[in-house]
């Protein structure tokens, strides 16, 4: 395929699910299951189209396309571009593939709903996936904001999907308030950037910012990072995240946690690495700070939760922190590892949320203190949950081992011993939180039988098996995935000239490669895994026997459930981030 043909295909992965989103609510009146079947088809088609880019893009090229052929002329750029680089392609492919699996699962779990519900659900789901894929491909900051809002609107509808449940509407209001404020921050940031540089495309912005980064640009970057950190669920912007995950249906929680929160991180990483010159701001340091706080406190809060889905939701906050720390290193190993972890997190967190959703949906029990004994009634769900837990714990041969090892190596090369120590501590707490959930929910014997048995259906099992197999595959094929997928992505981030050049002189440009060294059986990493897993498992009985530590109680009291408080934390975080960028 010629580069020009390939470039003209860039809008399709977004257009197909968008068209499906429009059609689905109408198709529901014709046949009940049709909208979900169509949505599986459109997301899979989106993934298939994205696969056409794989050979070109992963060989170190960037393909870009200007809509309506409003390309750059006489050095100025007016048009909106989509540019496919390795980082965006991995994000978009992960989204569409995992999204298709989630929709397949939905077909089996929520197939009994009415035409209005199923049509709306399939429509909003595809809308969110289209927005995420578009956010991965777009190379225009205002276009990114529009996709952020589209993703937001779809997520409000999906959060409040069970309209008859009070907590669902409550959660929808919280996510609405926080995401709207984040949207304002982003809009003001974009306006400030445009006023200073007269450009919106990433290529033109980078071209202009490479000359000089003024203090108004720094404030704009601070506002943008704060806004997108809200989407990413980094602390202290995370107030909406646990509630939205708790109230939504299982596949929607999986979509939010595995895919949607990545949008925030994608945008932050694009801005820090590809739009702003890397060392002209404190971006990486601030990202590391946000990441360390989220990783530690998120894991601590996950350990203290009684609701199964809230354990996983706070763990998402923690994992987003780990990703932020990985990208904050600015080293090849750290960025490649964080890209890898983003993919892995999408896989294992979707798997865990699907299992949790299946259990909650079937038994009607949400609290770990009332669950137990699931090992006997549904061994398949238990195995899937344990696979997810092992992946998060970074146990070989599962996928978390490779990505966590790379992030640890990246942090080690920066020489920040405090960050390294906190990361290991957060890892121990994460393992403890999930091991506690495994013990209380699945392995612990339970006296009485459940009112409704949690039986798994074939469609559900297929989706769970697919995700579990992917978790295993990306662990076993770690070195191949690293050199073929993650190293090109890291190269695109660390050497953004290729990305910029493809936008200023479309359609194709070459990225200079980056080599990431990593060996699978390194003794140090294996030792870290053994020690953290053992410590994590030992922590569980200790934690269960004792009263809740005062620090955890205080931390939980801060999460008062009041939307005013969460908005206040967001504002405080935004002020700190903007101040951090402005001061130098």
């Amino acid at each position: 395929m010629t580069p020009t043909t390939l470039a003209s295909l860039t809008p399709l992965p977004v257009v197909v699910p968008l068209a499906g989103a429009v059609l689905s609510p109408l198709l529901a009146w014709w046949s009940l299951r049709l909208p979900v079947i169509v949505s599986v088809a459109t997301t899979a088609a989106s993934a298939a189209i994205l696969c056409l880019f794989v050979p070109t893009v992963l060989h170190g090229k960037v393909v870009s396309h200007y809509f309506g052929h409003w390309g750059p002329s006489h050095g100025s750029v007016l048009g909106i571009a989509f540019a496919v680089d390795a980082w965006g392609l991995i994000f978009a492919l992960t989204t569409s593939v995992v999204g298709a699996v989630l929709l397949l699962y939905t077909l089996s779990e929520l197939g009994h709903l009415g035409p209005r519900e199923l049509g709306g659900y399939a429509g909003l789901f595809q809308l969110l996936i289209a927005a995420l894929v578009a956010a991965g491909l777009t190379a225009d900051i205002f276009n990114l904001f529009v996709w952020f809002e589209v993703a937001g609107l779809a997520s409000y509808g999906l959060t409040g999907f069970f309209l008859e449940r009070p907590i669902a509407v409550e959660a929808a209001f919280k996510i609405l308030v926080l995401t709207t404020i984040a949207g304002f921050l982003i809009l003001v940031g974009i306006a400030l950037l445009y006023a200073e540089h007269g450009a919106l495309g990433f290529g033109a912005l980078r071209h202009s910012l490479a000359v000089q980064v003024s203090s108004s640009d720094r404030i704009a970057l601070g506002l943008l990072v704060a806004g997108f950190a809200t989407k990413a669920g980094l602390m202290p912007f995370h107030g909406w995240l646990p509630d939205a995950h708790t109230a939504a249906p299982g596949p929607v929680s999986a979509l939010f946690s595995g895919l949607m929160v990545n949008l925030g991180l994608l945008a932050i990483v694009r801005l820090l690495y590809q739009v702003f010159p890397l060392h002209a701001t404190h971006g990486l340091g601030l990202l590391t700070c946000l990441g360390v706080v989220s990783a530690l406190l998120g894991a601590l809060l996950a350990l203290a939760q009684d609701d199964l889905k809230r354990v996983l939701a706070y763990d998402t906050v923690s994992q987003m922190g780990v990703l932020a720390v990985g990208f904050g290193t600015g080293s090849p190993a750290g960025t490649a590892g964080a890209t890898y972890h983003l993919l892995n997190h999408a896989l294992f967190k979707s798997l865990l949320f699907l299992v949790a959703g299946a259990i909650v949906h079937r038994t009607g029990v949400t609290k770990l203190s009332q669950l137990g004994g699931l090992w006997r009634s549904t061994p398949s769900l238990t195995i899937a949950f344990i696979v997810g837990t092992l992946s998060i714990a970074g146990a070989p041969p599962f996928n978390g081992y490779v990505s966590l090892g790379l992030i640890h190596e990246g942090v080690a090369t920066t020489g920040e011993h405090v960050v390294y120590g906190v990361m290991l501590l957060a890892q121990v707490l994460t393992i403890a939180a999930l091991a506690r959930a495994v013990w209380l929910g699945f392995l612990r014997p339970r006296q009485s039988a459940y009112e409704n048995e949690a039986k798994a259906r074939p469609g559900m099992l297929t989706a769970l098996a697919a995700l579990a197999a992917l978790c295993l595959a990306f662990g076993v094929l770690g070195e191949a995935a690293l050199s073929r997928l993650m190293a090109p992505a890291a190269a695109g981030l660390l050497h953004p000239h290729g990305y910029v050049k493809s936008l200023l002189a479309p359609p194709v440009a070459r990225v200079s490669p980056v080599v990431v060294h990593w060996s699978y059986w390194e003794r140090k990493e294996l030792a870290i895994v053994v020690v953290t897993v053992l410590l994590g498992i030992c922590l569980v009985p200790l934690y269960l026997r004792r009263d809740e530590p005062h620090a955890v109680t205080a931390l939980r009291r801060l999460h008062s459930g009041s939307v005013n408080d969460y908005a206040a934390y967001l504002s405080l975080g935004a002020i700190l981030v903007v101040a951090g960028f402005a001061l130098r």
Partner: protein
Amino acid sequence: MIVANYVAAALLFVLGLYTVLTRRNLVKMVMGLSLMESSTYLLIVSLAHRPHSTAPVLVEPPPGRTAQQLVTGDVADPVLQNFCLTAIVIGVALTAVFLSAVVRIAQHYRTLDADDVRGMRG
């Protein structure tokens, strides 16, 4: 004159944020958010301002000006005005979603006090 616009936009934004942070009534919070939204419109339109410029409607030059004058930048920046339009459209949709969520909350919880709408915490 345009500095006054920036100051007004900043004041409106802070006022809206103050409402969101301190008022417990959900409808008042939505109003606060609307205020913040309007302040961003004001800021963006003010950023588009250029001294002695006219509106960016380029069907034909306004009386007393030639097409050449418009091309050399004698109009307000149309891109920022487009921003503003897009933001207004998004804002309208958002307000609709907001209010329907508030109606649902009022039906379920029989209250509009954010402190009583705390089914999930900790």
